[in-house]
């Protein structure tokens, strides 16, 4: 077993409550006593319903937010105080890709300028630690010849490639993908998922892959963790979690999945009617 890239030990994060009609003013425990490990070159998928704490977990894992209690260690060390030189080094190694690529990019800069800017900020331009020139990185993600374009001149899928290119330019060891393909059409989603998998095979980057789409997570992940109310209720090899879910909540999630085809739907409905009849 390799040394883990990322370790979360009994990590919790609470926020002060927002109040509202059906909520008390007490604290929201967004992440509640989570333990997990992620190894170099591995993809850990995080699934769960809206509000289960996936994004909060992603922010804690990437160090951009700190736990209320518990420990997060990246490459064996806790994240350094935000803003410190050590933090800036760690920040380079951990990149985050969010759902909405147009908000992640500067509308006033060309795509090349954004990639170059990120590299300059970390003193990487032309250096040996970098993944290559901005043009080479853009070509790597399939944006060859589009470097002079501005964000508004690109499609959603191209924008997400640009965000991934900027992340790659810093040669990260970990990329946290928070709903990174959720806003894309299936065809474009497939292009981006293929790209992420190619990059992992070539560069050994690890992914913490957060999505509410169980099909996508199943496809990209080696292991999967299922979250409910801030806790991880089940983890396991991707195939096992879906083929033989142990936790009742995971079973409910899978039972709620829409059918893969009309034939599969009819078979499922017939099965359920039979079960109902038996009761």
């Amino acid at each position: 077993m390799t040394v883990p890239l990322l370790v979360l030990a009994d990590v919790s994060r609470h926020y002060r409550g927002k109040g509202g009609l059906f909520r008390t003013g007490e604290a929201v425990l967004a992440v509640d006593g989570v333990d997990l490990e992620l190894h170099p070159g591995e993809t850990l998928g995080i699934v769960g319903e809206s509000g289960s704490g996936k994004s909060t977990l992603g922010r804690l894992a990437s160090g951009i937010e700190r736990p209320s209690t518990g420990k997060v260690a990246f490459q064996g060390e806790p994240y350094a105080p935000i803003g410190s030189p050590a933090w800036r080094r760690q920040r380079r190694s951990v990149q985050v890709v969010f759902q909405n690529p147009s908000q992640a990019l500067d509308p006033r800069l060309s795509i090349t300028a954004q990639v170059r800017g990120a590299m300059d900020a970390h003193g990487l331009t032309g250096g040996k630690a970098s993944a290559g020139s901005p043009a080479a990185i853009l070509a790597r993600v399939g944006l060859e010849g589009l470097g002079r374009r501005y964000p508004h001149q690109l499609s959603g899928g191209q924008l997400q490639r640009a965000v991934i290119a900027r992340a790659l330019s810093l040669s990260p060891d970990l990329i946290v993908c928070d709903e990174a393909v959720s806003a894309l059409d299936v065809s474009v989603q497939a292009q981006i998922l293929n790209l992420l998998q190619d990059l992992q095979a070539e560069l050994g980057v690890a992914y913490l892959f957060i999505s509410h789409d169980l099909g996508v997570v199943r496809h990209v992940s080696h292991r999967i963790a299922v979250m409910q109310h801030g806790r991880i209720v089940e983890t396991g090899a991707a195939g096992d979690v879906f083929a033989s879910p142990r936790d009742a909540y995971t079973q409910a999630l899978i039972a709620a999945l829409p059918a893969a085809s009309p034939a599969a739907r009819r078979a499922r409905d017939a099965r359920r009617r039979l079960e109902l009849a038996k009761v």
Partner: protein
Amino acid sequence: MTAAVLTKVGVGSAGALPVEPTIDPARAPAATPVLAIEGLTVGTGAVDLVIDVSFEVAAGETLCLVGESGCGKSLTCLAAMGLLAEPVRRKSGSVRLGATELTSLDDRRLRDIRGRDMAMIFQDPVASLNPVQRVGRQVAEALVVHEGIAMRSAMRRAVELLGRVGIARPNERANAYPHQLSGGMCQRVMIAMALACRPKVIVADEATTALDVTTQAQILALMKTLQDETGTAMIFVTHDLSVVAEIADRVAVMYSGRIVETGPVDALFDHPAHPYTRGLMDCRLHALSAAGGRLAAIGGTVPRPSARPVGCAFRPRCPRAEERCEMVPELKPFAGSQSAACHFPGSAR
């Protein structure tokens, strides 16, 4: 339809409710469509955004409109509802509700019909509700306007409707403002509003896209159950093919403003005729199917409406394209009640 079944939907075990289908999903469209769109072209200035679109929906039937972002699904829905806004306008074509031609009606008559005979449900329920009005009141107002009943009895019926779409403690919830309810609950309120006047047609544009799988399953089951009860025709826009598998009787696939394939849902899944439909089917991912490996992505992107290629708009992305594809293919019958707009329908790449 009994209230007992509805309650079950509301309390909601996670999965879709296995109600015995009262309508054979594979049957052909009925002879008298509730809504018929013919030769609809929508656009701005010289640019066409929806081109020569025709389809029909019958009572109790669900037609799913699918296709990538920007293919014209929403504009088709808005045109059907008479809700297009400048600079986008209907350039030609007809929209018939029963025997009534909607495109020749004035705004007042059209407003009358919307809500009473036709209702639309949008993707973002929170944004579609009035944020400063209690949800019970919003449902009640739809009833007052379209049924002409008094506010007091409308409020009673609104609470009843909220209960029927599976909102627990509807009496209390009727007093809530939209931001005090979850996304799933707001979508139930939208459905209650759409159902308030038992419309003949419901147009649902990505109505479950923003919801969790468990909530989505409940809402889909609810819509199917209510549809079986009321015989409402439904146009359901989604980009999620497993939602299509769940709810559609027939499917129309749109690409770059045109319908490129249409047919019964089973036919489209079993033997898609158009290379674009095949491509969409190939990049599906399902949690219960074997994983791993490279995905069969469709390369490239949907062309901008102002820069469509000559001939078949799918040509630059099509693995099957030949010289003949520089001519626009017509939508022609392929097999059974399936049609495709392709010079080489059904042939492998």
